[in-house]
């Protein structure tokens, strides 16, 4: 039964839910670890309800198709093979025409534009059973925000078919890289998850590293060499105002991450040849020390409930993954395979830790359970590093650097099962992605 109400806010405007009832069909993808046959879908160009909507209708339907195909769970039936066209949103669907070309899911949409306002409505049809899946949905927004509306339609379709929360209407903060390996310029940038709408948050006058979103996506933690020394900063995404969080002379700080409630920042502080973990109250600025070993402790990441921290330490002689209470204390090692482990990131679902692994001259992105069992490597290359989870815990983004003097860093996304590995196109090179929340 599909009774979910999509309460959607769009840039100060609100969406309305159409009241078209439908029965739940068997159209369903269970995301498991097994290889699945992608579900064939068709997205005819959305119907333009007035002349001004023509371009938006075509573009929005393309964004929806690209989003769905990018997951590897769906496969688009080419528009050239269509037997019938959708020219009227209200007309009955000619199911046999869609079955004949092996379509299982049909997404129909209609767009109207008035001034700088856009309305889009869509319906999802289960072609096999000949029934609508879920309710029709209508969204209102601005012409400038048309991609977000297409992402919301995509999220609704994805969610109805997989039973998982979507992740298309999300943003990613990352480091935009230009210049050669010996003279690399880095700036903080933010973009939609599909690489569109890149905006720069800093200039390249100071080296910046590893931005991390706050839980609500309004702030970004990062490391900057603005003073000549690495220090952690917090930046307001809206105003682009920034302030240093840790400025004790003679020390360096890096690898910051927010706690799930957004109130604390866990980070590494290096002083006198030793790097340990600290946790700061972001409002008062007061810090507590979480580790005090002579080894390197870095790359901390909170569990979704905020009670534990997974981190990287070389206390055993090589970098490995450990979990401890968020207030510090005894840590237990969870990584046990060959090689070196780093940059652990706790899944938003709580079940897995994603990490970077280096073994026999290769780098991998992998996942393991939080007790260290069921390790699975899902990528391999000369240098894969720094995974970040989509908010639904089903997709990872990371960066891949190519070898040699002309080496360049590119963002990639991959399904947690290892399917659908693909580059995320950015204007320049990209590294250190961090996925923000569903908007």
């Amino acid at each position: 039964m599909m009774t979910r109400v999509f309460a959607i806010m769009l840039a100060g405007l609100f969406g309305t839910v159409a009241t078209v009832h439908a029965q739940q069909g068997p159209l369903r993808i269970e995301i498991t670890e097994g290889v699945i046959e992608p579900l064939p879908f068709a997205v005819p160009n959305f119907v333009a309800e007035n002349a001004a909507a023509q371009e938006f209708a075509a573009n929005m339907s393309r964004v929806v198709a690209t989003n769905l195909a990018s997951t590897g769970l769906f496969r688009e039936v080419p528009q050239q093979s269509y037997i019938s066209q959708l020219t009227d949103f209200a007309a009955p669907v000619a199911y046999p025409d869609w079955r004949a070309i092996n379509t299982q899911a049909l997404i129909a949409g209609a767009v109207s534009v008035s001034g700088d306002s856009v309305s889009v409505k869509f319906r999802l049809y289960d072609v096999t059973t000949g029934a609508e899946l879920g309710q029709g949905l209508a969204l209102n927004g601005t012409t400038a925000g048309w991609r977000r509306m297409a992402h919301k339609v995509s999220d609704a379709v994805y969610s109805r078919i997989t039973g998982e929360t979507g992740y298309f209407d999300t943003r990613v903060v990352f480091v935009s890289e230009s210049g050669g390996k010996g003279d690399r310029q880095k700036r903080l940038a933010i973009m939609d998850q599909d690489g569109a709408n890149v905006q720069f948050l800093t200039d390249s006058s100071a080296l910046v590293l590893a931005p991390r979103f706050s839980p609500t996506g309004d702030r970004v933690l990062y490391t900057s060499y603005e003073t000549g020394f690495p220090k952690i900063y917090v930046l307001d995404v809206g105003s682009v105002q920034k302030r240093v969080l840790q400025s004790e002379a003679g020390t360096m700080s890096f690898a910051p991450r927010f706690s799930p409630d957004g109130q604390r920042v866990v980070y590494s502080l290096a002083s006198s040849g030793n790097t340990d973990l600290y946790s700061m109250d972001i409002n008062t600025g007061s810090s507590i020390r979480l580790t005090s070993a002579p080894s390197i402790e870095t790359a901390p990441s909170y569990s979704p409930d905020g009670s534990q921290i997974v981190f990287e330490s070389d206390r055993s002689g090589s970098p490995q993954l450990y979990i401890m209470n968020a207030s510090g204390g005894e840590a237990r090692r969870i990584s046990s395979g060959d090689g070196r482990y780093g940059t652990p990131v706790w899944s938003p679902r709580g079940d897995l830790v994603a990490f970077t692994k280096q073994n026999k001259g290769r780098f991998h992105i992998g996942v393991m359970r939080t007790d260290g069992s069921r390790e699975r490597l899902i990528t391999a290359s000369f240098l894969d590093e720094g995974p970040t989870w989509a908010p639904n815990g089903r997709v990872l983004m990371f960066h891949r650097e190519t070898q040699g003097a002309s080496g360049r860093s590119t963002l990639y996304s991959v399904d947690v099962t290892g399917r659908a590995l693909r580059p995320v196109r950015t204007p320049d090179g990209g590294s250190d992605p961090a996925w923000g929340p569903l908007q």
Partner: protein
Amino acid sequence: MNITFKAVMVVSAFALAACNNPARLGGNGVDQSAGGAAGVIPGSANDPTSIAFFQQNVGDRVLFTVDQSTVNPEGQVVLDGQANWLLSNTSYTAVIEGHADEQGTREYNLALGERRANAARDYLISKGIAGNRLQIVTFGKERPAEICSTEACYSKNRRAVTVLATGVTG
């Protein structure tokens, strides 16, 4: 300890060739092409009080093995020379940059670079240099000196570089 300075100009040309990034952090801003006259040109590599002389004749860097931050015997010789030079050129301060090769994650390499820079600093302090003349900074794997992806370059990138400045540090 005395360092023998031989074949100054030959060594200097060699050192320049070996350095891919002379204009980067720590570049001394001295126009090397201005040399050539017989006398000592202030600031040039044959002025023993100059940054250029320090870089090319004393040696501004020590190298480390994989994941290690212990100063090896060769590195100790270089740091002994740096200490002597700093003891006789007291108007200079230094920032010691710690670097790592690209094998390893960004965060780990930042921590490792700090360890290496601190190891070099501790050694210099043990040879009588005042701690307040020596700051450290880590660049992790962000600023390779050599940019190939083989051990030939990695071995030169795992380094601590003593970058001189005139003036007082905080």
